């Protein structure tokens, strides 16, 4: 998985600890996984790697660096655009907490 990672962060304890002027770019302290009700699961047998889902993901949560497309469940909000746009129906939306998923 080649996606930005959440970093360890401790809250400032006094005013001097706060950044003055600019702050670090690409600084992630918390994921967005808690927003999700449905989780997209890719059926790797059906996937032909057309990269449509990679292109349309508003959060960029689909990683194309490996042989198989991988979803970063830390930052996927479960909007379902990928599943809706997949022409082969290779992505299914599975309710969070449902045990029937094989993709994870």
């Amino acid at each position: 998985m080649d996606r930005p990672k959440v970093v360890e962060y401790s809250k400032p304890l006094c005013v001097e600890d706060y950044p003055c002027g600019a702050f670090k770019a690409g600084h992630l302290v918390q994921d967005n996984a808690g927003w999700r009700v449905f989780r997209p699961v890719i059926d790797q047998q059906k996937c032909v790697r057309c990269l449509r889902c990679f292109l349309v993901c508003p959060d960029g949560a689909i990683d194309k660096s490996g042989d198989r497309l991988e979803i970063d469940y830390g930052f996927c909000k479960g909007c379902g655009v990928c599943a809706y746009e997949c022409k082969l129906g290779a992505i299914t939306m599975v309710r969070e907490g449902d045990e029937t998923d094989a993709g994870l």
Partner: protein
Amino acid sequence: MATNARELTNTEFLYGHRACAGCGGSLALRLAMKVLGPRTFVAIPANCMSAVSFLYPQISFTTNAMISPFPATGAVLSGIEAGARALGFKDYSVVGFAGDGGTADIGIQALSGAIDRGDRVIYVCYDNEAYMNTGIQKSGLTPFGSRTTTSPAGRNIPGAAGRKKDMFEIVAAHGIEYAATASIGYLEDFLKKIGKAARCRTTSYIHVLSPCATGWGFPVEQTVEMGKEAVDCGLWVLAEYEDEEFVLNRKPKEFSCVGDYLKKQARFKHLKEKEVEFITANRDKKWEKILKNWKA
């Protein structure tokens, strides 16, 4: 420069933002950043994208990015460009992402000034057709009949009564080097246009229609589909302005039904047959002018 998913870099330059699920604006920004690459300076005025990606200590842009004053996007872009030039930087882009209100209402004079000066900056207007960030108020780019909190649909007035400003033609009237309209329904076309803008020597302007599930009221998974339908029914036109000439990029053989597109959205649910006909007639009038005057 990348023009399709295969050529696009896997690296994300906008990641971990807090936009609503299925946000069209964040998709437009994410892909534009991927085309422009890591050596990009970004300025964003008050809009959803600045609200969701600069939540200290969660900073979603991995490149230099800042929030500009609301009316000053164009001026801030000019300043960044002048600074980069003074420092002797080579091979960089300066881009601004303003919303529809930040472009057509509040930021229009700074944008006009930037185009007039001819600074080498890219101005992207991501158009979700209302002030979505503050809770869906009418902007200058809200189309006729759209229900917002400041243009509620009532017995006598069917939502927004005015017409949508034609920002693309307003910008083109400056004699800008390159201007284009795009939609997130046709992403390859959008990528191509961002690439073209990046190669310009002076100011360029991209106006991208970015459906907003929250404000428009449609199921979140249909964001890209909505952007496509807007083009297919003829209410949104994909075009370019280059070498002082308008070029139409996509001419649907047959328009899909305007009513079907409108009725999928909660903001147009209240429209009566008469109003849908009015919108359709306006579309036909606009297209007649386009086909007569623009290069196909």
